[in-house]
């Protein structure tokens, strides 16, 4: 079993801060016409980005943080049928071949969707059919097999958040939005923090501070 340092933040403490954040977001004096995201912001310490092992990866959250995230299925006939049944946009490989590797068209496709899922048996054709533009846009698909539940796979994609520290010691991740319940936000926050701390050589000793913040709110400290 991997050894995990005892969590330095409590569910109760986190819930208090989340409730304060939500109260602020929903207060009648702060009306917004967009859905505010909730960010988790880390400041690290005792860590040297020049030589320590990179902090970079992804974590799957219990609740979908961005409900309006759009996914497109690039599929064989079986997966196209499934996508249609679930009301998910889809494109066949014939549709993709019609783009003729035209960079402008592929980039346009990349911009239309937040993420792509592709039939596992056809994923490796993607670079040959579309050229480099999907990879270049950071939107290369993840695979789905016929054995997988397509709807569940799409939820997985929508629930997975990437994180990556660049040269500074600060990192922010969007782990929810202000229309989620306090419990959903608390769960997303706890999973993320514990996962991130498990990826740090010195665990909690590498963490200087953690705050949560919605787009228009002041920061609420968690650690």
């Amino acid at each position: 079993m991997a050894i995990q340092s005892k969590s330095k933040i409590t569910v109760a403490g986190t819930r208090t801060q989340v409730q304060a954040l939500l109260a602020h977001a929903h207060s009648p004096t702060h009306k917004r016409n967009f859905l505010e995201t909730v960010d988790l912001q880390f400041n690290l310490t005792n860590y040297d980005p020049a030589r320590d092992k990179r902090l970079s990866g992804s974590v799957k959250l219990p609740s979908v943080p961005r409900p309006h995230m759009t996914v497109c299925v690039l599929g064989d006939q079986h997966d196209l049928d499934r996508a249609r049944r679930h009301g998910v946009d889809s494109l066949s490989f014939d549709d993709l071949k019609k783009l003729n590797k035209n960079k402008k068209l592929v980039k346009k496709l990349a911009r239309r969707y937040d993420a792509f899922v592709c039939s596992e048996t056809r994923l490796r054709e993607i670079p040959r059919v579309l050229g480099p533009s999907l990879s270049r846009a950071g939107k290369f698909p993840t695979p789905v097999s016929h054995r997988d539940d397509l709807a569940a796979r799409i939820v997985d994609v929508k629930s997975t958040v990437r994180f990556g520290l660049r040269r500074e010691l600060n990192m922010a991740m969007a782990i929810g939005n202000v229309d989620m319940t306090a419990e959903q936000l608390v769960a997303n926050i706890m999973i993320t923090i514990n996962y991130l701390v498990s990826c740090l050589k010195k665990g909690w000793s590498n963490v200087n501070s953690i705050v949560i913040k919605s787009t228009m709110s002041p920061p609420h400290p968690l650690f």
Partner: protein
Amino acid sequence: MYQLTAVDGYKYSKPDTYVLEILPVAAGLAAIASDQTLSLFDPTRLNAGPLKQIRTDHGNLTCARVYDPVESIVCTAGENGTVSIWDFRTNPIKAAMQIKGNTDQVPILSLACSNPSHTLAAGTELANHQASILLWDLRSPSSLKISYSEIHSDDITELTFHPTTPNLLLSGSTDGLLSISDTLITDEDDLVLTTFNHGSVHHAGFLNQGTELYAASHDEKFAVYDMSDETIDKGAAVLDVGDIREAVGCQYLANVVPKLGGQGAVVGVGSQDQEMFQLVHLAKGGDGQWGLDRESVVALPGAHGQELVRSFVFYDEQQLVVTAGEDGGVRSWRPT
């Protein structure tokens, strides 16, 4: 479970030095460290210290690769965008040639060498929304042969040439992708032959005479992929270990060393809280399926204390394993 005992070692004198990578060459064991030095050790006499050592001039030294193990030629690169080729046979270690062409001086994070095709590849950090793979023909090192900037959308952290078809280049990035490109092709629209979506790539390399490849992500997800053309319908991993920390009971993966002439590889994993480092065999079972062999794990108790192991080398004939770590130490180990 087998155990090794530490028999010899050396500690870099400058405090808080990380030994980043050790590489075997005919002249001995090459090592790069965070004090910007490149050193040559005798792996059987580590306590004597480096046989030779020079300071590199890369700003911050990020990577090293062996260009020619027999001629003991090693290349290094770093954050100021420079690449150097070193000949270990001379005393002192001399730069074998001047590599030029990274005019924007973009930081270099990864290197790959192909001696048979005289090619050197360098992977850059993301800069100005672009991450590039720079290629040199070492017969004319003063200018770039070609550079590719469409393969990845983020820092290029791993590069390796195919063991038998040297124009094929494996690249891995923090964008999560593993791509195989044909470097004989200049048009970036047709360059990439296959791509897998693994997760922010820490280490990746070829297995089984280059028909398969392994990948380890920065957040410890490990998998094996089949990249041969005959199996183009295999878009997902043929072995998906998931989080290797849960699969084998460890806190991190240090590195993977392919077995020469064999199919598999040795995966080095550590638990710094337990001051432990272990070597786990990645091999194909009787059923032809890849797996991590938990029965014949080799343990190196004590490891590098509470610091991480970064690199290891094994010398099969001498029954010797050498490890390098963030405690500034290079240690050698033998069966108990």
